[in-house]
């Protein structure tokens, strides 16, 4: 593996990890994409380097190892599919909340706080929102497109 390729894989992993740790969903998705590409670059480099592996064009012992390349193609396709699904999910999340922040798990907060324990989960979501609105953070703007719908009504 050449130093340049190793550096590329390392950089992709580093940037991907940084983005993954962000709170915004869109950045998480881009981060996952970069991480996947980092792994793909790593995989391509795991085989032998050499000439294009086409029979009849040179000595087979000089050929690059075609197996990792074909495997990486499969991995790229899988990554493409899952990223598309993730983007669709993020869009759905944005339609529902007008925001692409990753929220805490509500049930975890219930167990931690115990104060809300008699309320339905969606009620707590409202409570949390009210608390945040009182902190002057505008959360529920009206949308121009499809109206925002909260959890259970759907």
């Amino acid at each position, binding site marked *: 593996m050449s130093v340049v390729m190793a550096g590329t894989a390392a950089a992709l992993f580093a940037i991907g990890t940084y983005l993954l740790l962000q709170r915004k969903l869109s950045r998480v998705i881009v981060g996952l994409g970069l991480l996947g590409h*980092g792994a793909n670059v790593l995989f391509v480099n795991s085989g032998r380097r050499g000439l294009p592996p086409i029979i009849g064009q040179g000595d087979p012992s000089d050929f690059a190892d075609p197996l990792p390349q074909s495997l990486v193609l499969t991995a790229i396709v899988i990554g493409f599919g899952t990223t598309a*699904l*993730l983007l669709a999910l993020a869009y759905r999340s944005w339609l529902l909340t007008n925001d692409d922040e990753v929220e805490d*798990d509500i049930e975890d907060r219930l167990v931690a706080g115990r104060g809300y324990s*008699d309320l339905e989960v969606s009620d707590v979501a409202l409570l949390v929102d009210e608390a945040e609105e009182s902190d002057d953070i505008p959360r529920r703007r009206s949308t121009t497109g499809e109206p925002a719908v909260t959890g259970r009504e759907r």
Partner: protein
Amino acid sequence: MSALLPLPVLLPLGGAALSIVVGRWRAAQRMVALAVLTSVAGVAVALLVAVDRDDVVATQAGDWYAPLGITLVADRFSAIMLLTAACALLAVDVYAIGQPGAERNHVGFQSVYLILSAGVAAAFLTGDLFNLFVAIEMMLTASYVLITLGGRLDQVRSGMTYVVISLIASVLFLAALAFTYAATGTINLADLAVRMGELPSGVRSALAGLLLVVFGIKAGLFPLFFWLPDSYPTAPAPVTAIFAGLLTKVGVYAIIRTQTLLFPGVLPTWLLLAFAAATMLVGVLGAIAQDDVKRILSFLIISSIGFMVMGLALFTVAGIAAAIVYMVHQVVIKTTLFLAGGMIEHTGGSSRLSRLGDMARTAPLIAVVFFVPAMSLAGIPPMSGFAAKFALLDSVAASREWWILGVAIAVSLLTLFSIAKIWLGVFWGQPDPAETTVAPGRPRPPALMVMPTALLVAATIVLGLAAGPLYDYCARAAGDLIDPAAYVTQVLGSGAP
């Protein structure tokens, strides 16, 4: 016999395509799905009989010889897992058809469900590390769709966590594959088993550790389990049931397969035992803290993963055999418990303990189908849980790891406590009077929901009564895992030029 091997993967994939074509006719769609899942179960029985006679059955798809081609291989371990999975998948599909909700409202349910079952079967049957990656991706991608099927806010939120964590595990898996290929020049499991011995011990430990992390995320091993109890309970009941029964077990299957075949003795026993103990304890303590039927059960999944890893960590025939018995038992039990949980939610209108009560009187049928697997989970004698747990504890005692024996017994008692918490909250007592909205009474669950659950309940009793033959079979399977010579020769020998 080897011609049967691709069928558990190909039949569901074909069925998935067909059920999209006939999507307009819901009855035809269901017929296709049920026919496919039944025939997969039939093939699994045939495979089980075949591998118990011939040890290992292998085939090379597309006639490329072993280290390069797509190897499908069944040994005793994969055959019994495949059969158990096929039965659980069939039962849950019938339940899903009966339940108002998920399956009825979504045209794509049956085809996505079939893709999930193809992925599970492929993960059990593959003889190649990269195809294991593809199989797990196939299964997970289907599960992403199933877990967010309703598109509700809580589903999207927890589904997002689930998808992101799973994708990180996939990226790590891909990196592990790259390192493995760079080190050995192959990713065929049998070929790897031969070549792994030539590597320096540091490289082997690194690869073993990386793969343990990857499959640990999928299995919900401590400390990588946080996503599981957040995401599983939001899905519709049948979906949660099949996730609880199968998906984590595929992770455990991959851990057992790779650690026994590729890295025997590479990771120290105390390390795996420590992970196992922490997983058991955290799972059961988490379960005690919860107030919701589905969440308690989700934490108990994690606890049970600890027991399986404990059996593996001993690395004796008795330990691994007990782990396999326990896995089979857990697939049946966890599926049944979540199906019963779905019926509680259907009839009681909620799954929160504070809103439910007195169902032993109002819905005795549900009480019975919950009680039997719950007692089996706790390990009360006539049921399968007793046999599985006894075999596990016996193997631990035989290996003289006394401290983890103590942990396991304490965890079993705490499991009984958390199950009793559900029992007291749901079946005895009254709904909390302070509750503003007491759940309205609903009609009894439809027969199609009750029937598959009752069959699974019967299965746990049968497994308990037939524990002797089951354990003997699993001991033979564990013997194959400890000594993989037959596996290696069968895979590398068949079809080689």
